[in-house]
């Protein structure tokens, strides 16, 4: 990941900053520029998600790219945040502990290190609540 790309998404990754449409009440993560339902009538405002959610579905990664190889096997899940929108993230627990409907909460973790001399990317992962 390039440094500017990582940096631009920093607040989304660190603090689950997304947004919501005040017209219809829908939440968006990652943030959207316009509400796909309300279009011109929509009013988009910034919103920081609580970080509480449940596992809607998951997959266990056993063969990963080099940067993530040390962490295998690990669970990647689609998390349904309590506000109603979904996001994809790693869930930190034993793969056999993962189940659909599992309550989870956000934590701040290292996502990837770019070799020994590159930037360290931090972000949000989830643990059992």
């Amino acid at each position, binding site marked *: 990941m390039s440094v500017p790309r990582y940096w631009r998404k*920093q*607040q989304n990754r*660190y*603090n689950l900053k997304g947004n919501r449409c005040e017209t219809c009440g829908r939440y968006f993560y990652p943030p959207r520029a316009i509400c796909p339902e309300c279009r011109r009538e929509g009013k988009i405002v910034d919103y920081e998600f609580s970080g509480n959610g449940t596992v809607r579905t998951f997959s266990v990664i056993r063969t990963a790219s080099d940067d993530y190889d*040390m*962490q295998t096997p690990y669970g990647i899940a689609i998390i349904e945040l309590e506000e109603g929108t979904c996001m994809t993230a790693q869930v*930190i627990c034993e793969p056999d502990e993962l189940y659909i409907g599992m309550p989870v909460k956000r*934590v*701040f*973790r*290292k*996502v990837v290190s770019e070799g020994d001399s590159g930037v*360290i990317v*931090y972000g949000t*992962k989830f643990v059992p609540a």
Partner: protein
Amino acid sequence: MVGIITYGAYIPRYRIKTEEIARVWGANGAEIAAGLGVKEKSVPDLDEDTITMSVEAARYALARRDISRDAIGAIYVGSESHPYAVKPSSATVGEAIGATPVMTAADFEFACKAGTAGIQTCMGMVMSGMIKYGCAIGADTAQGAPGDALEYTASAGGAAIFIGEDDPIAEINHTCSFTTDTPDFWRREGQIYPSHGGRFSGDPAYFKHVQGAAHLMLDQMGTVPSDYDYAIFHQPNAKFPRRVSKMLGFTAEQIGPGLPVPRLGNTYSGAVPVGISATLDVAKPGDRIFVTSYGSGAGSDAFDITVTDVIESDLFNRSAAPTVEELLANGKYLDYALYAKHKGKIVMQ
């Protein structure tokens, strides 16, 4: 009066037993565990470092008391294991708790006392009116070379202590320090593991400086050990703080709650901040706490603290974050091979 506004500790969930480390090196584990008074230690997860632990500790502190992020004027992270040699851990913590951009930040290093040096710096800035709140963090993924005596205790964890003047949960009555140039423990630039002077780290280092700062505090405050309900001393193992507390005249009951080291290990810069957190977890209004940190190289910072009514008021929700006792419970045990993987001790091609 200046004091602690809120606090939070963080300890990773993985553990390794002293006996498991001793098994690998052909040593007598039971004897070592008994000698050090440390039966197990915490181990960071593969994706945890000083920055992630600092963020979690600061977020726990803010869960207990939701202070305005804009009013946090300074963040200092004290550690021997900052993930970057050049790039501040404190700026990432500021970004992750929403305190940026109007704040100052810096990373501190003074072996195991960088966290308490941060508390003193925040106190000075708050008392001078430069900032409203300051955040001092002590955290480490402590390093100890394979087979070295340090490996039995070097653990992972930390705590965040927020300093301010508005309704503190604990007033800091006084602080003082005792510092000399004493080379008992060091890590040269570019080296992975620290070196130490073996037994030299005892009498001329730990005991001289802890006693120096502690006596200074008792003299300046006109107090005696029995005036305090609790005492916290730097804890590289359980033996040193138990011995120095006895030498100074403190009892085993006074140091009990602030001595998590037998189950946590030595969190280096995190040791005293975690000890303060563990004591505040159980303290009642009016309790007086004596604190003395120690950092090799060498120096000690002492604090005289009085817990206020605010700790049990509506302004503060102590149960909104886990206690040190809760963080220590339900550890997940690793064998030495997995521990070596977690600590990056296996060289990968």
